[in-house]
């Protein structure tokens, strides 16, 4: 199956970020495809390059990047939601890509299931 994930959880403090990464990992292991993980609303903060999370604390950004680096799953964020929250090309963590709701809408038409994590 082709899955598309929309992630709403904020950086550092929310389980939903880790759940999204865990789900993606498990789905890929079972032979499914994750078309993309799309960050929307406060979820865009996961793409900041200035997060400073102690190594013994949960790190959703690392979990997302690991999915990206290991399996090539695109990590997209909504440009509008990002701009309004100060997340832009100048402070974007490598691995994340600025996209738009339009690209997300297009992917919605192709995926078998769209799942939100929030």
């Amino acid at each position, binding site marked *: 199956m082709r899955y598309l994930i929309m992630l709403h959880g904020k950086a550092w403090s929310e389980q939903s970020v880790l759940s999204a990464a865990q789900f993606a990992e498990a789905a890929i292991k079972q032979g499914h495809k994750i078309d993309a993980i799309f960050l*929307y609303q406060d979820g865009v903060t996961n793409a900041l390059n200035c997060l400073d999370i102690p190594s013994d604390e949960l790190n959703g950004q690392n979990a997302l990047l690991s999915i990206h680096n290991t399996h090539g799953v695109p990590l997209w964020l909504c440009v*509008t939601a990002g701009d309004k929250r100060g997340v832009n090309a100048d402070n974007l963590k490598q691995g994340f890509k600025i996209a738009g*709701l339009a690209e997300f809408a297009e992917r*919605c*038409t192709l995926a078998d299931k769209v799942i*939100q994590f929030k």
Partner: protein
Amino acid sequence: MNCKKVLVIHTQPSFNNLAGKEALDLSLILGSYEQDVSVVFYGQGVFQTLAHQDAESILQKDYISTIKALDIYDIENVYVDTNSLESYGLKNSERLNNVKCLNRQEFLSLKDNAEIVFTI
């Protein structure tokens, strides 16, 4: 392009946060991609459907008027959950004209029929 039945459920009050606006942004984009979009205001989301909200008085911008304009973007299925209205004592309050009432059964079947559901 595939046309999918998409349901966008608004669950947040009008101006506590701007989830309502970001839900509308999503609906409008999906609508412009010719998806079959329905919008439901549910739970505290029903507050977004109240008429005459004075956003400016609390230094906010009025995004509520976008709800009135949804049909311009060919999104005509705009509903409010009647049970939620009752929960908040809003059944007899004046609401936006283009928002139709939906009972729980109708809401559930709308959800069942949707191919993609967004809860925002």
